[in-house]
């Protein structure tokens, strides 16, 4: 799966140097600090990281859903289907939202309007983007509910969000996102709030729906298990920046960035006989308190003097891989540190 060898078609989505700033009582913070990635047509990119790394905000920038006191910094470029989202007028932007690119949010209980029925909220998307009549839109909504695997959709469509289970609410959200056949799905932790069994069902549903329509997907998650199931490529975020990007198999086989390695090691795996879970020492710093130079340095087992004085650039490693780490230039230090650990 070498994405860079063939002459690439225009990516569906292309983020370049996207920055989000927030004005707080303590000054200006930049929770998303220079993020760039592409998503090709029909491809699923997983954006992975712990809470506070900026992945959800990054997802919101695509449809320009960042509200005051935050804003997308002027230098950011977001190209969707060849057009720069940042320069679009209100009407053009609204034409894309929900129709060509649709979002699925994490908490369906709060992401759905409590006073309208499930069917009405799906029908709203239809009526916003087409001239469909009330009944036409309603029928479409019911059909969509059936398509996402909800039994007795005619009855469920009339029910309100609080009358549905968590899994069903999320299916409603997925139905809302799919009903206009978008070419890009942006799923922000779609299964985090649900049981593991439902998680698997919904991920399958998403994948099937996506493949059937030839759509692309940006999947935001903190769960590496989900990544392994659903994505073709992965980008790992830490403290507002992308620290590693790779095709999924390559990432799991040989993670390059120490943070990714830490995440992998921390994953509980069946079949191992370890007694204690490994953790990454320290905690994720909040956006106002990011260290200068390499932001992972104070938690990194390989760090040396250069890491605290010089910020590492995002190195291209070939084969569609990148890593934001000085170890790329000084690989000897990697084995030295590993050797030291082995002897300890």
């Amino acid at each position: 799966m070498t994405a860079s060898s063939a002459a690439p078609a225009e990516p569906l989505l292309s983020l370049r140097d996207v920055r989000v700033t927030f004005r707080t009582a303590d000054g200006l913070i930049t929770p998303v600090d220079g993020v760039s990635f592409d998503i090709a047509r029909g491809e699923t990119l997983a954006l992975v990281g712990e809470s506070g790394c900026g992945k959800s905000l990054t997802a919101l920038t695509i449809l320009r859903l960042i509200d005051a006191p935050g804003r997308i910094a002027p230098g950011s470029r977001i190209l969707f289907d060849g057009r720069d989202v940042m320069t679009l007028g209100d009407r053009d932007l609204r034409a894309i939202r929900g129709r060509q690119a649709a979002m699925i949010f994490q908490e369906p209980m709060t992401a759905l309007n409590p006073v309208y029925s499930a069917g009405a909220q799906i029908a709203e998307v239809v009526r916003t983007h087409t001239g469909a009549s009330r009944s036409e839109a309603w029928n479409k909504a019911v059909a969509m509910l059936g398509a996402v695997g909800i039994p007795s959709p005619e009855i469920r469509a009339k029910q309100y969000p609080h009358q549905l289970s968590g899994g069903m609410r999320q299916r409603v959200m997925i139905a809302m996102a799919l009903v206009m056949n978008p070419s890009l799905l942006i799923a922000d932790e779609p299964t985090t709030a649900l049981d593991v069994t439902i998680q698997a069902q919904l991920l399958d549903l998403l994948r099937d729906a996506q493949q059937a329509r030839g759509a692309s997907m940006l999947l935001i998650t903190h769960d590496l298990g989900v990544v392994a199931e659903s994505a073709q490529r992965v980008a790992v975020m830490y403290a507002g920046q992308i620290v590693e990007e790779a095709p999924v198999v390559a990432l799991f086989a040989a993670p390059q960035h120490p943070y990714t390695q830490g995440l992998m090691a921390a994953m509980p795996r069946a079949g191992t006989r370890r007694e204690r879970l490994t953790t990454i020492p320290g905690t994720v710093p909040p956006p106002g308190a990011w260290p200068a130079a390499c932001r992972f340095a104070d938690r990194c087992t390989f760090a040396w003097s250069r890491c605290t004085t010089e910020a590492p650039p995002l190195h291209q490693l070939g084969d569609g891989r990148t890593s934001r780490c000085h170890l790329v230039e000084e690989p000897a230090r990697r084995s030295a540190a590993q050797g030291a650990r082995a002897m300890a």
Partner: protein
Amino acid sequence: MRALIQRLWQGLVVVAIVATAAFVLVRLAPGDPFAAALDNARLTPAMREQWRIAYGLDGSIATQYARWIGALVHGDLGWSVSMSQPVTRAIAQALPYSLLLMGIALLLSFTLGMLLGALQAARHDRATDRGIGVVTLIGGSMPDFWLALVLLLGGAYWLRLFPVGGASDPLLPLAATGATVLLDRLRHLALPVLTLVILITSPVARYQRAALLDRLRAEWVRTATAKGVSSGAVFRRHAWRTALGPVVTLGGLALPALVGGAVFVERVFAWPGMGRLAASAIAARDYHLVVGCVIAGAVLVVIGSTVADLLVMRLDPRAADDEANDRQHA
């Protein structure tokens, strides 16, 4: 339907408590309508006693209470000494005036208040928002009787646009046309209604603004925007519509204040409603009438808040289901 019955039952209990409390309070009062009013040497104690029996004021408090409850169940609130008619009739005459005044004031205030609050939320933190905010702050901070006085001074004495008091002009010729009568009534209504409107619109506007600003931050608003819905429709369907419930609830909760506030306004403008009736009943130590007024006030409030609750249940489907949940878990 079950919710309605439950509400009414609760309301009944509340009215019963209020009635009992009022009864006890008034009975414990020193003073006696037959001591002062009939302070005539020719009236012997025996005759006073006869009057007392006739008006049901003899016997122990317990007996009086039992007798009174019996009458109450039949809709008989007793006899008003000061007005020489059944209490129910006195109240029935005054009630429509109060309902008219409060009804119009409520309707106007809520409409205006919701519009202003919505406007403020839509223009959050801009000049319009701040300007209206200042006006509602001042309007809601004025004492009701004082505002009534100020408006009376301005409207009736200085501008001479409105009459000084009452509900209608007693000197209007009997043959006056419908239009003249209507105009006269409106002129008399204007100042009292204006007073109440200023007083009620202010908290409604502030509450609506707060509720809307809160709803505008809701996650479902972001979802709607992400669906491509226009900002106007998002505001209407997803913010304003979900903020209606709390505002209506506020209306229900504000009823006691409204009924109370009307007392002062009616007094200043000599409006012949329940408030004025209650005030004069108290001055005359007319027990039955006082108790009758308090009960009537409580009943009004209970009916009003029941209506408000039912409205909320229609506006917010979660509330309707909460009722069912409460009953299950109670």
